């Protein structure tokens, strides 16, 4: 290229609006979500004056007078008791003894009649650098607490990473459950989708069109409509239970909804097209005469399938599987409507943290875990589907 040509300028001009739009409303939101996960400005907001002066401190010498004054001013200005409590809890977990020190200090500061000249006069412990180091660390707006908590880890008093106690370990269960449900759905989609695609690819004319239309119709139909449809089919007085009772297979209705079975059935239905279509698109590129060739060379049908069709279509199965898995781990609507409390996946938990308890840090951290997993899998998928291997 020698210099910007008018054509290049035109291309840039055409690309710019969408590029800027997506940077602003797609990339930025994702980053701000991730920054929520690693930022914790609670202490910084409470102690702005302290933050100004602590930055110049060498972390070894006893606290200077301006530091003490700044902290006193900050503590006096605090009017949010809950935020103060959060801060104390955090400082106490970094340095035990903070709780008593703080309560002593705040009560002394609130004694307007007899203002203390400095902090050391309230408690000798304010002379020790350890307590100030704890404050200085807590002032940093970056934290790995949420990210660690997302995988049920935390830091102990000494700052080492360790497992959270069992009663706080909910996220790992949900992560494992998310991947397990996604894996099951992928498995069922493959079991149904692979033979289905093979049959469709082996047909021609209206039969093939019919089989493809049966895949495309649900794909194009609203996800909510499909979920509602499964709701109707699976409920206690639903068509499936009615049918099974009518043919005398069961006496009492099966529990199909608000449990794992329902979630898997509905998700398999919703995601099956994503399995069938990639496999089908690979299968139709395989020359029609390879299977006859294998037969003419003496391969019985099963061996011909294993040696020729299966290896050639594996790429499609892998793309389809990844596509289904990627979609499944991010699923929200179907588990939310068809699943029970024990079937909620990571997306539901993120939504809960974000909208239910306004814990943006945790929502962001779990979101980051999900996003990273998704993007990793997607990069594998993208490589798989763009790699035109040296065949054909």
């Amino acid at each position, binding site marked *: *290229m020698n210099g910007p040509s008018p*054509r290049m300028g*035109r*291309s*840039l001009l*055409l*690309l710019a*609006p*969408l*590029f800027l*739009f*997506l940077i602003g*409303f*797609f*990339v*930025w*939101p*994702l980053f*701000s*979500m991730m920054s*929520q996960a690693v930022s914790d400005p609670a202490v910084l907001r409470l102690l702005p004056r302290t933050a100004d002066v602590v930055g110049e401190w060498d972390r070894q010498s006893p606290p200077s007078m301006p530091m003490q004054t700044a902290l006193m001013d900050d503590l006096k200005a605090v009017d949010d008791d809950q935020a103060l409590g959060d801060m104390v809890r955090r400082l106490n977990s970094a340095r035990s003894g903070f709780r008593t020190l703080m309560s002593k200090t705040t009560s002394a500061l609130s004694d307007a009649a007899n203002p203390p000249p400095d902090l050391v006069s309230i408690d000798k412990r304010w002379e020790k650098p350890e307590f100030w180091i704890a404050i200085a660390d807590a002032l940093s707006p970056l934290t790995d607490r949420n990210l660690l908590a997302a995988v049920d880890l935390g830091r102990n008093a000494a700052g080492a990473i360790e497992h959270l106690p069992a009663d706080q370990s909910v996220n790992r269960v949900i992560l494992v459950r998310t991947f397990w449900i996604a894996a099951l759905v992928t498995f069922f989609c493959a079991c149904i989708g692979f*033979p*289905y695609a093979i049959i469709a690819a082996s047909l021609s004319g209206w039969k093939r069109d*019919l*089989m493809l239309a*049966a895949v495309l*119709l649900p794909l*194009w*139909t*609203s*996800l*909510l*409509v*499909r*979920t*509602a*449809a499964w*709701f*109707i089919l699976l*409920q206690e*007085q*639903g068509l499936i239970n009615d049918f099974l009772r009518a043919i005398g297979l069961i006496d009492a209705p099966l529990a199909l909804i608000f449990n794992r079975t329902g979630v898997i059935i509905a998700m398999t239905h919703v995601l*099956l097209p994503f399995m069938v279509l990639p496999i089908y698109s690979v299968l139709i590129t395989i020359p029609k005469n390879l299977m006859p060739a294998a037969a003419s060379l003496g391969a019985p*049908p099963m061996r011909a399938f294993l040696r020729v069709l299966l290896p050639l279509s594996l790429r499609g199965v892998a793309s389809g599987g990844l596509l289904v898995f990627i979609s499944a781990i*991010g699923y*929200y*609507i179907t588990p*939310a*409507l068809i699943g029970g409390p024990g079937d909620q996946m990571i*997306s539901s938990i993120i*939504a809960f943290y*974000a*909208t239910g308890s306004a814990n*943006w840090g945790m929502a962001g951290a779990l*979101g980051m875990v*999900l*996003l990273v997993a*998704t993007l990793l899998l*997607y990069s594998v998928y*993208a490589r798989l589907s763009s790699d035109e291997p040296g065949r054909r």
Partner: protein
Amino acid sequence: MPMKIAKFTFALLTILFLVAPLIAILPLAFTSSVILTYPIPSWSLRWFEELFFADAWRRAIINSLIIGAGTTLLATVLGTAASLGLRNRLFFFRGSMRTLFLLPMVVPAVVLGVGMQVLLARFGLINSYAGVIIAHTVVAVPFVVVSVTGALAGIDERVELAAQSLGAPPVTVFRRVTLPLAMPGVLSGAVLAFATSLDEVVLTLFVAGPNQRTLARQMFSSIRENISPAIAAAAFLFIAATILIGLAVVLSRSMLAKRTRPAAS
């Protein structure tokens, strides 16, 4: 022969699995009962009345149309322009640009929703039509890009060169040759954008306020809280619309195929 029967049975059962749920919900739209179960006691249009005249549903439909139209317009304009820009093969970041444009399809909706809520709140766009339209456009635009780049890739560039050689300036070439040839792709992109917006729930949950409740959002909470045959009536409309949209897309695709096929000898 037994192999053939097994294949046939398998195909039939799978088709049943794929299509039967969609068919099963349709008759319930016409039930007179207040519960969503078979058998249907008698036929009635009361749930369509509910859908069109009950305040919550009617507002939801109107909101869906407003937001869908806004999304379609924005996504189609942005997506078509970008697809035209992507035609330049010399462009260095072409691959990464394309990936960026398609990525919103991949990112889990809840993750995007959390980020979007934080960001739109910062801009004061939360609980506004503009905010919802922006959010929907982000996830609708990849469909437009895929559809339009597909149509553009089908255009024989020699046709444009021919137009140039016949004396048409670039703008005229674009208006008289490129755009008409890409039109089916643009239209089907627009249709897909509208359908995406219509069906979008998760982002709506995060960024829309009670005044921007869309039909899909209303269906979601209705299934969750008080399920009624109004859902089936809404589903009926959705499926009917899907089939119409599907036909439109298929038609425009075949139109595209016909147009871009080189003239037979």
